[in-house]
């Protein structure tokens, strides 16, 4: 039995298989409509995350399966003090597979150690969110046709954004990726990431301006610059517009550059960009459902 705790749990060969399956699901959804008949997914969400939970639930329903679960800790026995390991032992009697979101880091790992059913980490604090990374990778592969040989710009909060860190760690396994980190000084990518890139001989550059770098990019991964990350209001006001993607900046970009965003978007991508065919962040959500379908099938040995 296999679980998914980190995006690196799968080898690149296994990821290729997973993405091939997701691509086939996209093309032939009917073929998979009854693959999970009689199976149940438990969504154990100890903190609210409507988007991720609905994506998992939609994935299971698309496969013919059913869904049970809870959407915040208050409506689960955790509010009575039950441990994660006890909860998963109980859930193992009710469902065939479990997607767990928990505010505490490592909680899904504890669950996996005591579970009789596959556990998927659906986000644990600021630690891992593997299905977001799988979604990002599938989106890139589906729309670019490859996961190697490109320049990717990551823009916004590169210090605290776990989706960014996970994506970097997943992409370094592919050939000839050049990273461009675009962020304010205060929110630069952590040293352990740049140390890892140096050690692996992977090229990267750091820049504070999106405008200066956008023309070189094949992919642009946007994240939100949150006000609470700044020490003072002045810095925030000075910098926030610098990292807003608008029509003007898009004019400087390559005609086939893709814009991705893990969502929710607040104001870092102007709504005028939404109609640009290069803006693929809503398609990305759809790929999130396909990759979760492929993941459920793979972990249940139904692929």
């Amino acid at each position, binding site marked *: 039995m296999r679980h998914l705790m980190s995006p690196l749990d799968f080898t690149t060969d296994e990821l290729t298989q997973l993405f091939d399956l997701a691509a086939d699901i996209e093309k032939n959804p009917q073929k998979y409509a009854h693959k999970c008949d009689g199976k149940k997914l438990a969504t154990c969400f100890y903190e609210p995350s409507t988007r991720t939970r609905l994506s998992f639930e939609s994935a299971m329903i698309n496969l013919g399966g059913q869904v049970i679960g809870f959407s915040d800790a208050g409506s689960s026995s955790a509010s009575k003090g039950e441990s*994660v390991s006890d909860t998963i032992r109980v859930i193992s009697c009710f469902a065939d597979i479990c997607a767990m979101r*928990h505010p*505490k*880091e*490592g909680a899904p*790992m*504890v669950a996996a150690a005591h579970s009789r059913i596959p556990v998927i980490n659906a986000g*644990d*604090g*600021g630690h891992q969110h593997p299905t977001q990374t799988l979604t990002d990778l599938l989106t890139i592969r589906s729309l670019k046709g490859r996961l190697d040989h490109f320049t990717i710009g990551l823009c916004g909060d590169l210090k605290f954004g776990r989706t960014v860190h996970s994506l970097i760690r997943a992409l370094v396994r592919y050939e000839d990726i050049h990273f461009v980190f675009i962020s304010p000084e205060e929110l630069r990518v952590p040293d352990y990431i740049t140390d890892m890139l140096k050690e692996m001989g992977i090229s990267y550059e750091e820049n504070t301006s999106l405008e200066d770098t956008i023309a070189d990019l094949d992919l642009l991964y946007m994240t939100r610059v949150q006000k609470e990350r700044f020490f003072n209001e002045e810095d925030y006001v000075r910098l926030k517009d610098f990292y807003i993607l608008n029509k003007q900046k898009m004019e400087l970009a390559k005609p086939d550059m893709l814009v991705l965003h893990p969502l929710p978007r607040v104001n870092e991508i102007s709504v005028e960009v939404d109609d640009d065919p290069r803006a693929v962040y809503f398609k990305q959500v759809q790929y999130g459902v396909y990759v979760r379908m492929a993941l459920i099938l793979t972990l249940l040995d139904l692929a």
Partner: protein
Amino acid sequence: MLNVGKIEEGFVLDHIEAGKSLTIYHLLQLDKLDCTVAIIKNARSNKKGKKDILKVECDINTLNIDVLGFIDHNITVNVIKDGKIVEKRDLSLPKEIKNVIKCRNPRCITSIEQELPHIFVLADEKKEIYRCKYCEEKCRKRDLFYQ
């Protein structure tokens, strides 16, 4: 000069950095063992000027001293059996440390589930970095003495 007698079976931990023997006493959880322990602080040392020594009289199979590799490579571990040194054990960094150091990340699952063992896994041997098995919080050797 203070004299501490010989032990029949157990460990003599020599060349401990002066003043650190009590920390090691706690890290080895010697307070939980019902055995004779001598803590010698600031003993004279030709090499270092002064040093600490710990003598632990116990069954040599009951005490896991692997963690010492994480604390200080320079400690000399003498294994005693029948009153004689039978082995001088080399210290290396253990692959895993269980219930010796606590994860200090307030967002770690161990912060709310008290019964979970605190496990740190060797992540970078060169830089001597360990990471919490659950949340990957970093812990270096030098952080240890400030816990």
